[in-house]
């Protein structure tokens, strides 16, 4: 297993990703990343860096290496395949006569 990026190595703090929820009912949104020696300090640093202007009511921090990301080079095979597949959208279908509530 590779070394966690969230663990401090030598004189460098680990990397954390920050997610901020701006108000109740909305989801947490990725706001950026930061360095911190541990989770408790990562939360505090996130508070200082990303909620200075009243931006949030909740913060999540995640060790950067805990996030598995899709490969930017496989954009075609990953994300372009749904193109042209109109039948995956509700608007593709015509409403049958006599259906009142759809």
């Amino acid at each position, binding site marked *: 297993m590779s070394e966690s990026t969230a663990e401090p190595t030598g004189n460098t703090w680990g990397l954390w990703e920050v997610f901020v929820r701006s*108000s109740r009912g909305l989801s947490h949104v990725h706001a950026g990343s930061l360095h911190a020696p541990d989770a408790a300090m990562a939360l505090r640093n996130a508070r200082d860096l990303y909620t200075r202007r009243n931006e949030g009511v909740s913060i999540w921090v995640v060790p950067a290496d805990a996030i598995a990301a899709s490969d930017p080079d496989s954009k075609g095979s990953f994300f372009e395949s749904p193109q042209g597949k109109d039948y995956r959208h509700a608007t593709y279908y015509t409403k049958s006569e006599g259906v009142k509530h759809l």
Partner: protein
Amino acid sequence: MSEANASATRITPGNALRPEDIALEVRTGLAKPTEDVAEYALRLGDDALILAQRLGHWISRAPELEEDIALGNIALDQLGHARSFLTYAGAGVPNQDGTAKTEDDLAYFRREHEFRSVQLFEQPNGDFAATIARQFVVSYYQYELYRRLTESTDATLAAIAAKAVKEVDYHRDHSAQWVLRLAGGTDESRKRMIHGLRTMWPYVAELFRDDELTERLAQAGAAVAPSTLKEDFDRLTAEVLNEAELEVPDVPAAPGGGREGKHSEYLGYILAEMQVLAREHPGASW
């Protein structure tokens, strides 16, 4: 800005009391401190101002970028408290034409012996651990003070304290987290934390000394006698120190005297740096 590029987070200014609001109340006569309250506001304003100046020195010099911002935030919180207290204090010391002195008049055009801050606030930053030690003492003290001041019979003092206490609560947490980490980190960080606490602790006693002014204000319900904060301060700081396996430093108290304008050798240098621009170019703005 398109929706796709819009910030992930929303920005709102909030509606807490600002120094500008106090200035307006002072100008229109809505807020008028008694002579005692003005002197008291000057004390608390000077404490916060000198600490803000000290902490500001860390900007670009902190161990990590994130901590740089954390200390900068705390410095700005303190500066905000200073602005509010000094603006209010200015209403009690009018100019010759009867207008109130402004926060800038008080910050930039008083001399060393006219500052009323206690000596802890002007102590040098030292290394990071020494700054954390000073923050630890200051924020636990200010929290107990502001928490009680929210009940002040003086509405403006109570309003300033109500805003400040939330900010200082966070300063407490910040300093406590660092006391725990430095004490529990390496041998070197623990040694420095102990040294930092020993350096700052002689100035703790001065924070809790009553004098005639605080006694009169406490009687009137406008302020609290500093001595009454000590029990909670001792208990809460001891909790953190115990968890960090540190002891309350056993050091003799410094003579103090900041409230009467007697300062350590450091304040003059702080003021020289803080005041030089305003004195060289009075009324300058940018």
